[in-house]
């Protein structure tokens, strides 16, 4: 391969690095957009008795103020999922009920921010304060009902029971659990808690909207899901989808946060009502407190094994906090099971079940890892505790029980239950070995005493994710041969900084046997781009990549077919090498440049376009073995991360540099979740970690040495053998660090984050 598997620099790298104006707010070129501010609920749960904006309306420069009385009444979900979305339609643009501190009460549009804030402060609202549900373990059967409305809608059965505050329920089961547990010599049962985590992408949520010259609503938005935004906005605003265009410029990070259409409806509505351009930019507090976070969960794991360490049963019972709205509630919940149960393939019985419940806190939503992260912390922590009980090396316990390449598993693939999918590619066993070598496991396990109060411990965990959503998500690509002999590749996927535009161009260049400089990538504009479900669920490399390959093969065939016609020979008699089409006898030849000009001219009358669409029948899992070394201060509980090693199987690595950065970045986000990050609410339900002062993402000093290595496999259904890498990277740090802390000081922290307080308490209670 000439272009694929090479460390090519990102095609937009130099421009974004050096500060060119390419992000949503930089593109407000006329600088005359109305500025939107949102009045928010001070109560966790309340009904609006009356709302008076008459004085606020009189502030000079105020364009419009909208309350629940002024907005369309069709319920929708903001979850960016393929239609029909599994998330409940439980939202209105503005509702009579407010369901968390920060929920929207009124939209104010004014000539500038200062005026909008002044007007916002003059709106008078009288609330009937209701009893909020703040503890998700008490939500089921609580006296309050978060969604009392009659018109809440679901597209299909997701196990919703709104009278009991259950947003969805799920059960996955294979084998006879009772029998498997009975046959086990040892049964271990532990309960784990994972916290809500914030995305904390650097560019906050923002959208800019205007009417075009044909009366269509144009939305420029920092989004991962332009096509879903079009559909969601059309439903919420009750206008035809054909009247909406969504343009995605450069994105300043997403991590799943921008898979939920947090802001586009507000600017869309104001522009529709006023005919004027409008923009909204969430400040950091709104981004933290009024969008979404990771679903907090309580996960009980029951493991059964024989004395030799053969795992017989994996039984997981979970409870998920979806907050005030059900964005991604059923799917995140299911992924906990689907991305953990197949790992230990030797188990005779596996089961995953439980509920996602409504509470009066900020809604949860999609976040990198999407349930697999929560499930991995619980399952892998339990495995490490089981290893202690069995007195067996935890790496050996894994090697004995993990799924191997060529084995079938009933839960793998996750679409057609009961039809085992064969694992076509995996080097997980080798990843464990490689990781052990890199961290020097045999030398360091389980601990090393450094001084009177400092001990170093090492720990490990394994994980898997998927590559796109099998049977549901699809992507298309179009490649156009331009008249000057270069190509434009149109995709609907979103590059959030991951480098997906670049790796898709690499794949195109490889198939078309040309250089990167001859591929222009256009992404994404719903008027122009071919359909793509969006950049989430670890899908871009795998799903969109496969579509790109198909499109490029299509146009290549057309070039050969049409080029042969120009030469007046049969297409079997020519060879195309990317630059030149020659007859086999080399007597006649045409350059791509010449062909391109003649195809499009009066002679050829043919604009060559190649198209390709792909949707996976399976969702091939990438794997990681993660290893942590920590130093714990026994007197203070302080944990220092010394070293983190990740051995990664993501199939063929399309771009080693970009893949490495994806892994390093995801590991650090996982380290943040493991050790620092926590979305905390006051007793009244107000989020108190809503700035970077209170919500601590890792800084440069919090990251020890990070060592990433790829142990490639070849995924037969993947583009050039590739699988995904974006999400799987966040899953191992929490259980591996928890394990390392246990190995250092003998304390099992079962509730994230693993703070010095929890470690010290554990040490003191021993």
């Amino acid at each position: 391969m000439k272009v694929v598997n090479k460390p090519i620099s990102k095609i937009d790298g130099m421009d974004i690095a050096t500060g060119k104006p390419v992000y949503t707010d930089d593109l407000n070129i006329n600088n005359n957009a109305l500025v939107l501010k949102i009045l928010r609920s001070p109560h966790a749960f309340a009904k609006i008795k009356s709302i008076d904006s008459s004085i606020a309306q009189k502030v000079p420069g105020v364009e419009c103020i909208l309350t629940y009385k002024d907005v369309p009444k069709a319920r929708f979900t903001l979850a960016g999922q393929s239609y029909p979305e599994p998330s409940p339609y439980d939202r209105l643009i503005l509702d009579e009920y407010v369901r968390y501190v920060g929920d929207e009460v009124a939209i104010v549009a004014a000539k500038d921010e200062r005026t909008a804030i002044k007007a916002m402060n003059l709106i008078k609202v009288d609330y009937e304060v209701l009893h909020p549900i703040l503890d998700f373990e008490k939500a089921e059967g609580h006296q309050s009902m978060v969604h009392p409305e009659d018109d809440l809608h679901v597209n299909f059965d997701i196990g919703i029971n709104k009278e009991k505050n259950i947003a969805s329920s799920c059960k996955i089961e294979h084998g006879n659990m009772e029998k498997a547990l009975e046959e086990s010599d040892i049964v271990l049962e532990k309960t784990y808690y994972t916290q809500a985590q914030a995305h904390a992408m650097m560019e906050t949520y923002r959208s800019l909207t205007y009417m075009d010259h044909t009366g269509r609503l144009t939305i420029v938005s920092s989004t991962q899901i332009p096509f879903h935004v079009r559909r969601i906005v059309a439903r919420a605003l009750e206008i035809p989808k054909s009247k909406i265009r969504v343009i995605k410029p450069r994105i300043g990070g997403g991590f799943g946060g921008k898979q939920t259409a947090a802001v586009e409806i507000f600017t869309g509505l104001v522009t529709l009502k006023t005919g004027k351009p409008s923009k909204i930019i969430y400040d950091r507090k709104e981004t933290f407190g009024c969008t979404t976070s990771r679903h907090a969960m309580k996960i009980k794991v029951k493991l059964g094994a024989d004395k030799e360490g053969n795992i017989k049963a994996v039984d997981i019972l979970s409870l998920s906090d979806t907050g005030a709205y059900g964005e991604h509630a059923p799917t995140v919940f299911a992924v906990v099971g689907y991305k953990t149960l197949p790992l230990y393939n030797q188990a005779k019985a596996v089961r995953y079940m439980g509920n996602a419940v409504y509470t009066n806190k900020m809604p949860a939503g999609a976040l990198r890892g999407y349930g697999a992260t929560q499930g991995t912390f619980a399952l892998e922590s339990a495995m490490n505790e089981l290893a202690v009980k069995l007195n067996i090396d935890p790496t050996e316990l894994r090697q004995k029980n993990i799924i191997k390449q060529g084995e079938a598993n009933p839960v793998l693939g996750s679409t057609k239950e009961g039809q085992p999918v064969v694992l076509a590619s995996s080097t997980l066993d080798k990843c464990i070995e490689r990781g052990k070598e890199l961290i020097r496991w045999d030398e360091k396990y389980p601990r090393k005493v450094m001084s009177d109060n400092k001990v170093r411990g090492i720990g490990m965990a394994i994980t898997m994710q998927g590559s796109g959503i099998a049977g549901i998500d699809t992507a298309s690509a179009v490649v156009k041969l331009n008249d000057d002999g270069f190509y434009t590749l149109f995709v609907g996927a979103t590059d959030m900084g991951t480098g997906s535009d670049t790796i898709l161009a690499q794949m195109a260049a490889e198939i078309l046997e040309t250089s990167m400089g001859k591929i222009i990538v256009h992404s994404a504009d719903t008027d122009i781009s071919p359909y793509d479900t969006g950049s989430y669920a670890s899908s871009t490399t795998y799903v969109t990549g496969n579509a790109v390959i198909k499109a490029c093969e299509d146009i290549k065939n057309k070039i050969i077919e049409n080029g042969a016609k120009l030469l007046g020979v049969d297409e079997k008699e020519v060879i195309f090498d990317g630059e030149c089409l020659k007859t086999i006898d080399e007597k006649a030849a045409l350059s791509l440049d010449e062909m391109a000009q003649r195809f499009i001219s009066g002679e050829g009358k043919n604009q060559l376009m190649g198209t390709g669409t792909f949707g996976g029948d399976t969702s091939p899992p990438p794997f990681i073995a993660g290893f942590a070394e920590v130093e714990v201060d026994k007197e203070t509980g302080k944990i220092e991360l010394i070293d983190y090693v990740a051995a990664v199987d993501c199939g063929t690595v399309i771009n080693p540099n970009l893949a490495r950065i994806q892994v390093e970045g995801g590991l650090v986000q996982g380290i943040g979740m493991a050790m620092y990050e926590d979305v905390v609410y006051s007793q009244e339900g107000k989020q108190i970690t809503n700035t970077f002062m209170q919500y601590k993402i890792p800084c440069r000093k919090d990251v020890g040495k990070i060592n990433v290595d790829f142990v490639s496999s070849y995924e037969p259904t993947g583009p050039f053998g590739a699988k995904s890498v974006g999400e799987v990277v966040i899953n191992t740090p929490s259980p591996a660090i928890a394990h390392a802390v246990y190995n250092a000081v003998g304390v099992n922290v079962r509730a994230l984050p693993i703070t010095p307080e929890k470690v010290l308490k554990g040490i003191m209670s021993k």
Partner: protein
Amino acid sequence: MKINVKINHKEMELEVGCDEFLVDVLRKYGFLSVKKGCDTGSCGLCTVWIDEIPVLSCATLAPTVNGKNITTIEGVQEEARDFAEFLVKEGAEQCGFCSPGFIMTVLAMKKELKNPTEEEIVHYLTGNLCRCTGYVGQLRAVKKYMGVS
């Protein structure tokens, strides 16, 4: 109120509110490289130089820069590209939203520190957050740029 400043070596008269922050004024006047990430002086995205010293423009009141020299990355494109080459080669720019502020700090560091240790580099750059890269790729790029790898 009106203030007179030099931005990227060009004399300018700016109309600013007395409670307005420099970051908002710079963006209003078209210096769109300057990004806002936190409003609390915590993330470093809005870093510009005032009289050659890196400062957080989201925590600098605009009237206080009257008479001063302000430099944004638009004013040091050549130097920025020199470092960006290293950054992009590592793939460590990712979403790029934090890069202009980060690069302004890196360029200031290069002027200030000679042959820094890894620890000194990390310390100098700690105020610049990044959520994408995990920092280690950025560190590789900085070390190569500083010639200390």
